[in-house]
């Protein structure tokens, strides 16, 4: 981008084609919050498996994944607060916003369900995050590109873990097959939202800051379907299609999640240890 960008713009990596307009801070903040909220809320859900997984080993595996996601959320929210320039840090953004201010996709806020649902969601979301972060490493925004470069190795492992379990559940016992299939059915209405593009994303895509979610659909679903085919299950074709998370419209489940996550920080503001 041009060197004479005003205070409302953010410097980006040199060497890329100059976008027509400087990147607006408000746009970059909003986009980074979407990425951050996806990671934060999904991390909270995944962490619910700690001490509740089918086996001790799986407990640690899911806990590791939750911590990876939490780490991504922290860097993304910290960066968002920095971009916004209003003095909000990662904690303020995580704990002091209400439900309508969260802009995560609804798929990550759904309850953990049974292990079959958890694996189904992990497969789709990690496949999505893998393609997203891979593409985001080319962002003209240096910080987002750096965060993505670190995150892509983590979600690569999450995707592998989900793949391994999908194969074992889908092609396992009649009950595990049934649960895997049911998990996919419950998940399906929430998958499409991941690939939606609105005006904000459109602007940032043109400025080569954001990744076009629509372009991720094919590679993500191709990967998911290839795993499902090997696992002898299939993605059901549903007509139901939920959306709204990016605009702060959520399922009834997010409020309970936030109540638990934010309780301590709000009861004891500024508490430290």
């Amino acid at each position: 981008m041009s060197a004479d960008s005003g205070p409302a713009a953010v410097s980006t990596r040199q060497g890329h084609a100059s976008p027509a307009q400087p990147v607006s801070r408000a746009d970059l903040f909003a986009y980074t919050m979407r990425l951050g909220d996806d990671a934060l809320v999904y991390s909270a859900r995944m962490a619910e498996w700690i001490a509740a997984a089918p086996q001790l080993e799986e407990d640690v595996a899911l806990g590791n994944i939750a911590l990876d996601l939490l780490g991504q959320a922290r860097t993304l929210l910290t960066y968002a607060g920095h971009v916004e320039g209003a003095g909000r840090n990662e904690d303020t953004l995580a704990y002091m916003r209400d439900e309508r201010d969260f802009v995560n996709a609804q798929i990550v806020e759904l309850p953990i369900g049974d292990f079959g649902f958890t694996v189904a969601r992990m497969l789709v979301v990690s496949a999505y995050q893998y393609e997203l972060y891979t593409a985001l490493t080319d962002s003209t925004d240096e910080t987002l590109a750096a965060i993505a470069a670190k995150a892509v190795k983590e979600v690569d492992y999450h995707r592998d873990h989900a793949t391994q379990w999908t194969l074992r559940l889908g092609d396992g016992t009649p009950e595990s097959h049934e649960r895997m299939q049911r998990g996919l059915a419950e998940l399906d209405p929430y998958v499409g939202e991941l690939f939606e593009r609105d005006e904000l994303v459109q602007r940032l895509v043109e400025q080569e800051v954001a990744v076009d979610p629509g372009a991720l659909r094919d590679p993500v679903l191709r990967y998911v379907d290839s795993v499902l085919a090997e696992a002898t299950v299939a993605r059901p074709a549903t007509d139901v299609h939920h959306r709204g998370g990016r605009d702060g419209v959520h399922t009834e489940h997010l409020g309970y999640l936030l109540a638990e996550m934010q309780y301590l920080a709000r009861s004891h503001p500024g508490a430290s240890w």
Partner: protein
Amino acid sequence: MSAAVEWPLWEVFVRARRGLSHVHVGSLHAPDAAMAVRNARDLYTRRQEGVSIWVVPAATITASSPDEKDAFFDPAADKVYRHPTFYTVPDGVKHL
């Protein structure tokens, strides 16, 4: 998921870095070998402990019996000539 059927036990060996041998670090449960390697990654290499992992079904390991300890190991005790302690190590030879 029914916990009635316990997953088999696997012994885990981790190589800390290139040039060193794999060292036994512990054991874990996993449904199969592929999952055992992944579980080992999560349980035993979280803090960059290794660059390579082996897993071995614990059931396939044949071990010496504690009851045979005397017959197995004690006879070596008084054969000091088996130790390379009667050589003069030249100056400059390290790691011997």
